[in-house]
């Protein structure tokens, strides 16, 4: 599958810079990072804490402003666009999975998955419900669609988050330590789900992880240190 999509770049960035903090505490977190993600491939960004991998992920996900450099999403230059365009692009092209799942706890699993679809407004209520059910079934939660976030285990919540990330059929999924808060068994389940579903749909996955086992199972691993990639892309 990855070969079939190899030529299609979903996400590209060049010379990304980012500073955090102010005054004497100002830190140069990203130092001219460049990166490309192709459809159907899974990329792992690894490195020690504070090396800038999560900051890079938020930059790539248009959640954060850059201090230099450019980002293209599906061929469209996004780094200079306004908040409205970036927000619309997130809804249309990007699915996020975070370490602490960030489910909206007042909503059921089904409603959480439907939320990005509601915002996109492309489907009818019946279609949204149908798709959300299918996604929850595909992550093994078909029987728990009407449970509130608080009534699900950590692994189940993360699986709902995976289903939610896939809801609008994004071209790329950005995952920040998606298994960081899970035990080994659940980590494996969530990673397998994420990669299987993404590859089935030809979506690129960029994940930040400390978990070497998970990183080894990705198509490409990019080690980072002090705001830079250490070496050229390595395939696994």
């Amino acid at each position, binding site marked *: 599958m990855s070969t079939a999509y190899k030529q299609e770049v979903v996400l590209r960035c060049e010379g990304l810079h980012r500073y*955090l903090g102010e005054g004497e505490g100002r830190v140069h977190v990203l130092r001219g990072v460049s990166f490309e993600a192709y459809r159907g491939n899974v990329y792992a960004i690894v490195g020690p804490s504070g090396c800038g991998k*999560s*900051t890079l992920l*938020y930059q790539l*996900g248009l*959640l*954060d*402003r850059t201090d230099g450099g450019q980002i293209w999403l599906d061929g469209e230059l996004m780094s200079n666009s306004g*908040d*409205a365009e970036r*927000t*619309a692009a*997130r*809804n*249309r092209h*990007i699915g*996020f999975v*975070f370490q*602490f799942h*960030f489910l*909206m706890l*007042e*909503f059921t699993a089904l409603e959480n998955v439907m*939320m*990005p679809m*509601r*915002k*996109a407004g492309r489907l009818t209520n019946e279609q949204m419900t149908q798709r959300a059910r299918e996604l929850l079934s595909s992550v093994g939660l078909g029987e728990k669609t009407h449970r509130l976030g608080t009534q699900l285990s950590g692994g189940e919540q993360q699986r709902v988050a995976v289903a*939610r990330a896939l809801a*609008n059929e994004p071209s790329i999924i950005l995952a*920040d330590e998606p298994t960081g808060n899970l035990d080994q068994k659940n980590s494996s389940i969530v990673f397998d789900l994420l990669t299987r579903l993404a590859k089935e749909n030809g979506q690129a996955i960029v994940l930040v992880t400390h978990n070497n086992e998970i990183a080894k199972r990705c198509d490409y691993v990019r080690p980072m240190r002090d705001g830079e990639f250490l070496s050229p892309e390595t395939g696994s």
Partner: protein
Amino acid sequence: MSPNFLIALRFLTAKKRAMLMSLSCIVLGVGLFIVTQATTSGFENFFIRTILGTNGAIRIDNKFQDTLGAMYAAGTDAGESSMIISNREGKKLIQGIDEPQLLINALRPFGNVSGISQVLTGSVVVESAFSEADAKVFGIALDDHVAVSDLEDQIVGGSLADYRVTPQGLLVGSILAERLRLEPGDSLTLQSRDQRRRYTVTTLFETGVGDIDEARIYMPIGEARSLLKQTSGASYLQIGLFDPDRAPYDALLMESTLAHSATSWQERERTWLEVFRALRLSSAITVSVFTLIAGLAMFNTLAMIVMEKTKDIAILRSMGFTREDVLRIFLWQAVIVLIIGALLGCLVGAGGTYAVSNMRVRIRGIFATDTFIVAWSMWHYVAAVTTAVVMVMMASVVPARRAARLEPGDVIRGTAQ
């Protein structure tokens, strides 16, 4: 249902207790605002009805010679001009009206005039079998006076029919009658200058205005002329208007046209009207404190929700919800509480107004009533709801904007302020 509204509703129900506080304050604020406005306006309206029903909309009395005169807009007659410049300075006043009929004829063309009653007044000493008191007789033509007053509705003993058929019959104010222990059918003596005449009390009236009820006696104007030895003229003309609110304008026009002092009820009762206005305003300000508290409670609740929901806001933003969506989500919460609060507040206000209107309270002096007087006006509800909307929405905008300004990257990274 829009996703923003749905999220607002869920956030709201997750904070039931805090929202109930805001809701209760809005209900109380709106409800009490309505009740206080209904009672103060009720008493004010009743006072106005009373003064219109006793002394009429306009009173024309002393003649004056205008040294500066009045100016009308060019090319118009006195009755047509909409621009009048009048000056009360430098006028020489001559007591009473010499030619009342001429003035009455001149007043007929005024379109807003519904009735005119000429009145002759004079001081007398009243002597009953029990006691004696100072009083004032008011000579009137009954039908004319009924047309410019509520005298017909103010009868508390005997009847106007008795008055009409009884020679030497009198209409006596209720307090005066009580003081002199007079009942319909009793005799009394009126003494004016060197005359003493015997009359029969046929009817008792009560206006509710203490000053009137304790000193006023109505009698036929012909009899008054004879008793007061004033063969012609009148003390004043009492004018009834179809639209009493236009009285100041009409009075100004009449004064300019007739060269007699014309006083509108608004000018005559300015002091009391100002008192009522001040009462209405002060009660509105006082009860608005509840609405202010509602606004503060809403601010507090929304600020708490913003703090607790920063991660939800971040995830919503990452899913494609715009800053405006986040702003709307928080403003919707305020709007939902406001709508429920305003509706309940209006119901409480209406129920409270109804309950107050049935409370017994005996008031005599400036008007007579045995129950609380209330005014049912849509504008009280509009003003109460508007006050609540302004205060609560103003208080909600700050936390809502704060929520909208949150940077999702900062929240997820854990550095959001």
